[in-house]
């Protein structure tokens, strides 16, 4: 009996850590494999670790004018533009949804969520047909516009969560003190909702960054972003190339997640809870 009493609490304290460790292993194992592969020169079956290490693949991929640097540039450009435009469009919409009550609000919220729920293939096909007519296919501008469709619902929802806890009286106070509308936005509104804006912007960037189908169809194969390149190399390249590309593809996600968890206050995530 005494022995059992002694053991049970121990097991209880160990279990959560074991579970956490297991989850961590499952999540990081692919990354570890990529890390090893990215620097391996020769790595054959019975060996546990590669025999020789090299930076060759990195040098080759990052050489000026390479397919990879172009794709990296395209992805960064498109994701940044999409993040900025989606914030500009999403802020007024989220403000209205977060602050005011009006007829048809629930319906509007539902319609805003729709592109995030409908299968991507359906959205992509429909968009491509129309973009063909308007001459928006085959260039990065068209791709960026197309990315706004899956991005905007998330941006609006995150921001409207921020506005739900926002007191509009602060703006009124600033106005009676002599602040013009633009000054009110810059000195009061923006600083007060800043954490939410950062989270929404990061989300927008990441969603655009990881788009494959939309980019492929709307870009007509001429706009090469990282996911496009990654898919084609995954089926035909050597392991080292794939590993480096995959790491570069994952990098912003990891960096941004670390940044958000460290820098941003918890209240910035209220919008996410509603998702």
């Amino acid at each position, binding site marked *: 009996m005494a022995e059992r009493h002694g053991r049970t609490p121990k097991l209880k304290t160990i279990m959560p850590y074991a579970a956490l460790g297991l989850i961590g292993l499952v999540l990081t194992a692919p990354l570890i494999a990529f890390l090893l592969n990215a620097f391996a020169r020769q790595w054959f079956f019975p060996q546990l670790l590669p025999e020789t290490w090299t930076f060759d693949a990195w040098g080759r991929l990052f050489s000026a004018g390479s397919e990879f640097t172009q794709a990296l540039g395209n992805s960064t450009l498109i994701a940044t533009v999409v993040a900025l435009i989606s914030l500009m469009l999403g802020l007024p919409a989220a403000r209205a949804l977060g602050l005011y009550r009006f007829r048809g609000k629930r319906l509007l919220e539902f319609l805003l969520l729709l592109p995030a729920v409908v299968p991507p293939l359906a959205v992509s096909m429909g968009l491509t047909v129309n973009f063909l007519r308007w001459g928006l296919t085959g260039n990065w501008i068209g791709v960026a516009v197309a990315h706004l469709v899956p991005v905007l619902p998330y941006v609006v929802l995150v921001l409207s969560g921020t506005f739900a806890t926002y*007191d509009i*009286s*602060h703006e*009124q*106070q*600033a*106005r*009676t*003190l*002599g*602040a*013009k509308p633009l*000054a009110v936005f810059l*000195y*009061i509104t923006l*600083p*007060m909702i800043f954490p939410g804006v950062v989270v929404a912007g990061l989300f927008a960037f990441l969603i655009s960054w990881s788009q494959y189908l939309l980019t492929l169809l709307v870009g007509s194969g001429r706009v090469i972003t990282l996911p496009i390149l990654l898919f084609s190399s995954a089926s035909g390249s050597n392991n080292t190339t794939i590993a480096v590309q995959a790491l570069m593809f994952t990098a912003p996600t990891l960096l941004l997640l670390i940044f958000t968890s460290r820098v941003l206050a918890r209240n910035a995530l209220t919008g996410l809870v509603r998702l």
Partner: protein
Amino acid sequence: MTQVSLSQIRKQYPAALHPAVNQLSLEIPSGKITALLGASGSGKTTLLKIIAGLLPVTEGDVLFDGQSVMSMPTEQRGAVMVFQNHLLFPHMTIEQNIGFGLKMHGINTGIIRQRVADMLALIQLPDVGKRRPHQLSGGQQQRVALARALIVEPRVLLLDEPLSNLDAHLRDEMRDLIRQVQQTFQITTIVVTHDQQDAVVLADLIALMRDGQVEQFATPDVLFTRPSNERVARFFGGVNFIPGYWDGYLMQTEVGTFQTSIQVPPGQVLLTIRPEHVKFCDSPSSNPLHGIVEMQQFMGTHWRCLVCLPANSLKITVHATTMQVRVGDAVTLYLPPEHLWTIPP
């Protein structure tokens, strides 16, 4: 020094049954403190926001010194509002909060710093400039909010329930501070409050509001001694109402006939006298009343007595030092003619 005129203001909220403000006209004199006094829902805060330009009116006009400000956006009116929950900007230091208005008016940084320091001295918080709003107590935040409004030297200062979030002794301090700065700067000040006591102590003039209209607009002492109707009288602590007939010379009531000094046309009236104006007196020269002390209650500085008359009863307050009667005593009361007042029945 700005005179504020409200002309036939009506404000109807979309979903509301009755207008929040209804055909209201008021001349608010310059350089004085005017209180808008009333229960919640009487339209007083709505009126304050209309003056500030934060709410559009359905009908009517707001004039500053005779000029309509309806087409002027809030930021150009020079009517600065201090909100009930003081609303300091949480992302700014106290200095930045107080200096905000000057910054918006394009004043240079050096002057702002000097003026902010002056303001911090005025509100007796010289050392809090670098702190954040959440590091200050409620009373301190309220004072900072007042300083932030005063620094822009507003034409009109609008205070929304400036004392309601403070406990008793902070209330007195804040009252004194508001009076002091108002007298120093001579700013036309409009205070919204639901507290009769606050209005009386703070304001030169009180507009008693009810259902979006002004019941009576007068100095505090007039509201106490010359109320225009029973509701006003009750709001200011009037408790004695005796129906009667005024024939032009004498007041005939169910409890007796009285001499008064009032001048109103003959007719049915409601006779009223404040509880502190009724005197116990063995042989009054006029207006005697005989009754029995029914109940008495000690209130600290004074006693409250209920005296039963043959047909009615009177409530009387007597200063503790002069209290001599007991429950059950037969007493004679004296109603001084100059303190009798009539209101429409």
